[in-house]
């Protein structure tokens, strides 16, 4: 019995050290300037103002927490290309969260506005 337990312990140790339980995903982001040069596509720009997801777009401030209001704004033209810009103090996590919320609100094409390197 004891040798079996030893082997099982070693197997357990191996799997505990080598496996990852976190589900790794990816979020595709396009190059915004490549699409804005074409005149046929409709683009809508928005700027993330605060870390908790308040955006300003087309002259109005919208909290992305307010799913109904955001869906109403996105619903005006859900097929447009949404180009997301940020204020300087915004973190990458806040950017990703806003992209998620826009996607939930029905936006299908999301792009992050590139900055000058």
């Amino acid at each position, binding site marked *: 019995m004891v040798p079996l337990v030893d082997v*099982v312990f070693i*197997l357990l140790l191996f799997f*505990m050290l080598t496996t990852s339980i*976190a*589900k*790794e995903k990816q979020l595709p982001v396009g190059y915004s300037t490549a699409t804005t040069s074409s005149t046929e596509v409709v683009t809508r720009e928005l700027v993330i103002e605060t870390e908790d997801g308040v955006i300003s777009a087309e002259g109005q401030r919208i909290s992305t927490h307010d799913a109904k209001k955001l869906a109403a704004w996105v619903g005006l033209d859900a097929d447009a290309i949404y180009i997301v810009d940020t204020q300087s103090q915004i973190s*990458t996590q806040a950017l990703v969260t806003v992209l*998620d919320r826009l996607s939930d609100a029905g936006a299908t094409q999301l792009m*992050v506005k590139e*900055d000058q390197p």
Partner: protein
Amino acid sequence: MTVELRQNPPSSDTQLIPLINVVFLMLAFFMIAGQIQRPDSVVLETPISESESDRQSSPITIAVTKDERIFVNGTLVLQEELVNHISEMSDEIGSPSSPTILLRADARLAAVRTRAILGALRETGIGEVSLATLHTSGFRE
């Protein structure tokens, strides 16, 4: 008159059975729920997202840490050299279609820096870019 019932002490093997059961259950959990992968050489806090697209293996992975250091496939690269470095790597890969670049940006990194890296990648004129994320139901690394 009282009769004393004498019970044989359990053997050491019998005492081990509950322990073995637990260890087997843990082994089964890690074998089923986990996935074996090479650990990323650059440790950073991946942004959490609801994105459902599985992370694809990418020939070019760029990691940007919180303190703005840039690693291309694990090698430290200066911001000024990034465009040349990526262009050279793209030529080496020699794929007819543009490769996808996986950008692992730290969740705490300023989004402006992430956007600047995207700007630099656009200059190389290659590939599509995806941001590496962790699913909301996943555990923090």
